[in-house]
Each structure stands twice: as C-alpha cells, then as structure tokens.
C-alpha cells in the first residue's frame, strides 16, 4: 500500500509541478493521471504495485466528495432564495449533458461497427 501511495502521490506532485512550471491550465492530478498512464505503458510490470490500492481508492471514490459536499452549507443562506430555480437548472442541464453525450457515443459506436462489418 505504501509503495502504491508513494507512486500515486509522486505522479500528482509531478503533475502539479509541471502545470505550474509551464503555466498549464490543466489540473495537476489530471496531469498526474497521464503521467501514471505513461509510466504503466513504459513499464507494465509496475501495475502490480498500484493495482490493489487504486482499486480500493476507486471503490470509495464517492466518499471523497462528502467533505466538499458538506461545503454546500456555507452557501445555504445565499442560495435559499433561488433554491428552486438553481435546482431546476442543475437537474435539466445535467440530464441534457448525460442524454446528449450517451446518445451521440452510442450512435457513433454503432455506425463504426456497421462500417467495419
């Protein structure tokens, strides 16, 4: 677990440093993710080091959002007046994004399969 965490944190740290050094608008952890991916491509054996820890982390991914979610309390007062409007806007826009992207993905995937057949 410690070798795995070291590897994950090193990638994140490197990602943060690269993003700052070159003034990239990409978040450090996302860069860290591409770094780890590149590392795994270069040395597939290192996957065994991280596999179990990453599986555990990802199994509890939703837990990690709870502290930030509780942060909604700080904006309760400001938001209360427009709570209904904001809720409707969030639900509609989220539903639209899910529906559009899933339908487009499935349609293009189907068209590709037909062509290769």
């Amino acid at each position, binding site marked *: 677990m410690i070798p795995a965490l070291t590897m994950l944190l090193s990638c*994140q740290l490197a990602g943060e440093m690269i993003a700052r050094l070159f003034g990239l608008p990409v978040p450090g952890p996302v860069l860290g*993710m591409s770094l780890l991916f590149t590392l795994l491509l270069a040395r597939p054996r290192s996957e065994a080091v991280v596999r179990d820890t990453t599986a555990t982390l*990802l199994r509890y991914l939703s837990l990690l959002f709870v502290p930030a979610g509780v942060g909604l309390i700080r904006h309760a007062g400001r938001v209360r007046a427009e709570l209904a409007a904001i809720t409707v806007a969030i639900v509609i826009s989220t539903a639209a994004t899910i529906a*559009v992207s899933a339908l487009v993905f499935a349609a293009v995937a189907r068209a590709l399969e037909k062509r290769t057949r």
Partner: protein
Amino acid sequence: MIARIWVYLSATPLLWLTATLAAYEAGAWIFGRFGRRPLLNPVLIAVTVLIAVLAATGTPYETYFDGAQFVHFLLGPATVALAVPLFENRAHVRAALLPMLAALLGARGETIASMAPKSVTTPIAMAISEQIGGLPSLTAAFVIATGICGAVIATPLLNLLRLRDYRARGFAAGLAAHGLGTARAFQMDEMAGTFAGIALALNGLATSLLVPALARLMR
C-alpha cells in the same frame, strides 16, 4: 460532563473525520438496505446528515473541514489512480476514440447552446484545483451539486433512453457528473467506470482550454 467531552472533541480533527466516514457508511447501508434506489445515493445521504448535524450543533464548516480534509485530500491521488483502469482497458479505449470525441463535441455544443444555466456546472478542472489545499468555494459547491444530481439521475435516465452500451453510459456519467458520476459508474460496471474516468479527464482538459477562450469571445 457531556459538555466537557464536547469541548475536547470539537477541538480535534478526530470527531469530524469519524463522523464523515460514519455518515457515508450509514448512507451506503441505507442505499443497500432499501433496494439501491437512485434517490438514496450514499453521498446525498451523508451530506444531508452531516449538514443537519453541523447546523444542530452550531459547528462552523471550517471546524468540520479540519477533520474532513484528510478524506478530501485523497481526491488527488484517486484522480491519478484512474490511470490504472484506463491502462487495463486501453484496447477498448483505443477502439472507442471516435465515439468519445463525438460525445465530447456533442456535449460541448449542447453546453454552448445553453450557456446560462450551464455556467453553474463548472468543470472538474476548477473543482480539483480549487479544492485541494483550500476550502471548497461556491463554484465547488455547484460542481458538487451537479455531481450528486448526475449520480442520482444517470441510471434511471439512461435506462429510460434504453442505452445498454456500458461505455456510452459511463462516458456520459463522467462527462456530466465528473468524479461523482465516475464513482457511480464504477459501482455499476468496471467498463463504465473506465470510460467515466476518461470523460472526466477529457472534460477537465477541454474545459480548461475552452472556457478562457469563450470568456475572451464574450467580453
């Protein structure tokens, strides 16, 4: 006596760290116990319970966050960890490059078309960079609200659309509801989770490049 214990507990990170894990466990138990209904999302339950407890005890969010930050911090390494399922499923991912690109562009088009309501659903890019190391801001609050909403509605909505392609389902959930959608997708199916993780990363990338450009255009 109770007051003395409270004085001690309210000054250590231990209490709110434990409360965060306990609230999530309770949420997960309720979710499983009552037939995994989308509205009984564990995060939604945990957040609701914790907000109620903070309000009832008059605890400031800053005090809560002192304890909960240890959980919050793991968001960074967890994002990096998404590289592993991506690596394991790289053959499937390579085969689906075109559908992913199309879905991303499709969702972007829809975003630009509905700029006003959508401006509240700020992307993972801002979410991550703002959250790590600091208290989550209003932007982050909207990101979280969007994520919870997406995690709740994704499954019923995608069932309604009769989409059975787990790659498409995961990608859509990750794109619309970032980490929370990704978490939900991993609960459903490993392949769905992988594609959700890619969508999350791509969206972060696309938005961080696109938003400044759009802002410049609109000025």
